[in-house]
């Protein structure tokens, strides 16, 4: 029990827009142990990035709020920390890397400055020591000639190299948890593999836990121990990677798998989408959020919300037809022609 | 096949434009501040046009025995100036000079500047560097200083004021249009028109120029505000329209010498400038947001 590093219980996130409230995340639960990697998958708009942002308490001020839920990280109640205490957690105990390394590094500071800044924010360190640390971090993330590179600006780096720099910044304070928001989406396929490899080896070395946010199931199979599938702000299915890989149960997960297979056979860059679009989160619907797009939907799906059910140990599904007594027959190629 | 291509492209263009226009008007109306600016501008234009009906006295009618009266005395709404002329009527008539100079000088600058910018951007090469070097040279002069210099040579007078401020406006328009031409020039539809054998003139005026319109309108509107201030500044320095013609700047110039005896002269002439310029700027801001959000003037 003591090696649980992060526990999220019934997390809700709301966004206030001009006239309405968008319920972006509803009742998400996460349990993450030391050294474990959790994948959160879903389409854009499913609430996966919002969940991550909420963990860091970096939701846009005055717009995003957390009306319900509890986040316990390393024994601390994140939501009750003061702003200053939260700043001490950010970048120090929880670090984050983002999707687009082209835009997530500040273009007007050298990469060395940006790493040093991260270190010096959380540790008493002289400028000289910080510089040494920056060079060391560049070496750790596999950037050649770090002494020279440390003085360069982000625009002098390739995309993959920039993501390595982002990882160097994120890991410079030895965080207990690393949140990676689509860290490889903007990169070339070959570079993707290298970055994932790097993250894995650093995780081994530092006992870091990782939350990997992605829409790419391939990344999940490769990196994660557990996975949460999110759709329109809800967790539709969660379990260990093995269970979800071998025995996926939610029709939405099937859709994701199918589009992944289609992508692989087509050798395309983009994931072919499941037809239709998620519901408008400003107007909550009475039934299952996925009902409109679900080829298996029946009447009950649009009238009643399915409750999460633990169908086998640690494998939770929210679907009316996937219960302990009842199973749906999975059909081939029903989503994408 | 090739013959149908341009026409289908044209319909697409037209459709796009229609949608743009509708959203443009919606955006403009939605922006209440811009609507307020437009209202002020129209209000001032009406005052200028109907000046004879609004003014209570003839603007140049002197009456030394009733000079420097306070506001409201003897039927003089804002009092009288040092020559006993009715201040309110002079300010009402001053709107004419401001708007005439503002609009004409900007048109002057826009016509010449657009022409120079078009040919510089379109033909490029030596012609481009010759024109743009000259424009850079003109830009090196502070706007008002260029106008002052021109006025010292041209001498006072309404037409000369228009020319002086107009010339000072040329480089700004030339730069904007040239920039637009450079970006439009490389677009596909220009290539197509050229390959179909259109003349330079036709390409320039039918295809390139319309694409420069949005920034031109925004910049032009803002420039009118600037031109009105410049006219007032020239008149304030005694370089504007010939006395006794009423101009806000010249009233302010006289008012400056009678600050203690009659502060209304300086106060209200300047307020008239401020309100007009503010109105035009508010409208221009709204126009920019609606037409050309990327532009920063």
């Amino acid at each position: 029990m003591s090696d649980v590093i992060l526990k999220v219980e019934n997390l809700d996130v709301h966004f206030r827009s001009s006239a309405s409230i968008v319920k972006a995340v509803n009742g998400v639960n996460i349990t993450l142990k030391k050294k474990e990697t959790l994948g959160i998958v879903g389409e854009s708009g499913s609430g996966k990035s919002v969940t991550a942002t909420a963990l860091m308490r970096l939701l846009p001020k005055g717009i995003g709020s957390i009306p319900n839920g509890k986040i316990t990280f390393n024994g601390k109640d994140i939501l009750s920390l003061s702003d200053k205490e939260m700043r001490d957690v950010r970048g120090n105990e929880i670090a984050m890397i983002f999707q687009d390394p082209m835009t997530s590094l500040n273009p007007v500071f050298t990469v060395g400055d940006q790493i040093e800044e991260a270190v010096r924010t959380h540790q008493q360190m002289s400028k000289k020591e910080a510089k040494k640390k920056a060079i060391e971090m560049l070496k750790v993330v596999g950037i050649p000639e770090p002494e020279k590179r440390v003085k360069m600006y982000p625009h002098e780096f390739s995309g993959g190299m920039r993501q390595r720099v982002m990882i160097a910044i994120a890991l410079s304070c030895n965080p207990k948890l690393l949140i990676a928001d689509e860290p490889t989406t903007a990169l070339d396929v070959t570079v993707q593999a290298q970055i994932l490899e790097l993250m894995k080896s650093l995780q081994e070395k530092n006992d870091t836990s990782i939350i990997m946010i992605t829409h790419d199931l391939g990344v999940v199979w490769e990196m994660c121990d557990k996975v949460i599938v999110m759709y329109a702000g809800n967790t539709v299915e969660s379990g260990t990677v093995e269970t979800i890989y071998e025995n996926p149960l939610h029709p939405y997960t099937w859709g994701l798998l199918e589009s992944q297979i289609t992508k692989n056979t087509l050798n395309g860059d983009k994931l072919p989408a499941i037809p239709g679009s998620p519901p408008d989160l400003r107007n909550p619907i009475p039934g299952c959020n996925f009902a409109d797009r679900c080829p298996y939907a029946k009447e009950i799906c649009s009238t009643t919300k399915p409750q999460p059910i633990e169908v086998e140990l640690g494998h939770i599904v929210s679907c009316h037809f996937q219960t302990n007594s009842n199973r749906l027959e999975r059909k081939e190629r029903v989503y994408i022609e | 096949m090739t013959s149908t291509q341009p026409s289908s492209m044209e319909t697409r263009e037209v459709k796009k434009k229609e949608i743009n226009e509708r959203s443009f008007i919606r955006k403009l109306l939605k922006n209440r501040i811009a609507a307020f600016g437009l209202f002020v501008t129209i209000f001032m234009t009406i005052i200028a046009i109907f000046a004879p009906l609004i003014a209570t006295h003839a603007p140049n009618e002197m009456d030394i025995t009733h000079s420097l009266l306070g506001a409201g005395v003897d039927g003089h709404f804002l009092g009288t100036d040092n020559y006993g002329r009715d201040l309110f009527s002079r300010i009402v008539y001053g709107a004419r000079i401001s708007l005439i100079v503002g609009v004409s000088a900007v048109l002057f600058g826009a016509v010449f500047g657009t022409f120079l910018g078009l040919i510089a951007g379109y033909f490029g090469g030596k012609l481009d560097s010759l024109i743009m070097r000259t424009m850079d040279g003109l830009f090196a002069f502070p706007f008002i200083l260029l106008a002052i210099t021109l006025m010292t040579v041209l001498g006072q007078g309404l037409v000369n004021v228009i020319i002086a401020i107009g010339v000072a406006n040329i480089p700004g328009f030339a730069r904007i249009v040239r920039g637009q031409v450079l970006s439009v020039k490389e677009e596909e539809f220009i290539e197509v028109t050229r390959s179909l054998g259109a003349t330079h003139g036709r390409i320039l005026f039918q295809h390139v120029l319309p694409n420069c319109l949005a920034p031109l309108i925004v910049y032009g509107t803002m420039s009118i505000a600037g031109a009105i201030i410049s006219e007032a500044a020239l008149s304030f320095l005694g370089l504007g329209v010939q006395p006794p013609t009423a101009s806000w700047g010249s009233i302010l110039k006289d008012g400056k010498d009678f600050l203690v005896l009659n502060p209304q002269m300086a106060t209200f002439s300047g307020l008239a400038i401020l309100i007009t310029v503010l109105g035009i700027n508010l409208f221009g801001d709204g126009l920019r947001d609606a037409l050309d959000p990327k532009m920063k003037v």
Partner: protein
Amino acid sequence: MGKYILKRLVDLLPTIFVVAIIVFVITRLIPGDPAAVMLGPQASVEDIQELRDDLGLNEPLHTQFLQYIGDLVQGDFGVSLTYNQPVISLIMDRFPNTLVLAFSALVIALLIGIPAGIISASKQNSVMDYTVMVISLIGVSIPIFWLGVMLVLYFSVNLGWFPATGMGTMDEGFITYIKHLVLPSITLATIPMATFARITRSSMLEVISQDYIKTARAKGLKEFFVIGKHAFKNALTPILTVLGMQVSALLGGAVLTETIFSWPGMGRLIVDAIDKRDFVVVQGTVLFIAIIFVLVNLLIDVLYKIVNPRVNYSSGKGGEGK
């Protein structure tokens, strides 16, 4: 860096040459006889002819032009007829005064305008934001010669806090010196201040939504550093562009401000020269101001390079980073 500055300086020579040509053309080619203008409507034909001879206006144009350029290269801006002094020495007497005024105005404008824009952007749509926006809109629309007169009316005539005209000397004491400087520099600062506030706000708003700001927050930085360091340095480029344009506005505005406050600077010199129809002085001073402006813009180009590492040192041919 030294090489870059040198190269840019050489680049500027043609522009300065063009500026000189423009001044020449304006004063020689435009309809109207400068000699007649200088002497006024009552002058006799003989007087005008004589002045034309003195000014070299009866020479062929190209001779006049070569003479003029030759003089300029030697730093000879001509000799004033009314002051009986070389124009350059008239300018040099007054240039420091204009510099003091323009510099104080610029400092006020930057110190108030930029923080106002930053606060406005970081609290978008707040009461504070709207206040800054409204004041800055009025600021860019205000005729500064009116503002100057109004400041005199309230703070000199009515309240008597500050002198209405003139420039104090250090001999009269620092306080007197500053007191003379307050109203003119506020007058001159208004437009640049409002412009800086507006451009800073819009430029900051654009930057604040960038990913690297999220990165900075995720590092655990204080909001003050996120905004003041990470966002602001990125927002600087458009602010610098505006700074270049505002120097022009400051020099132009100085003409009006110095007139209102009888400030003994170059602007006042021009206006006096216009009154006295001394067009040699007008021409020389205007040319001098234009050259100053061109040089200031060189300085700003250099600042660009410092602020923004992505700008190439060797612009033009074969630029390849560093």
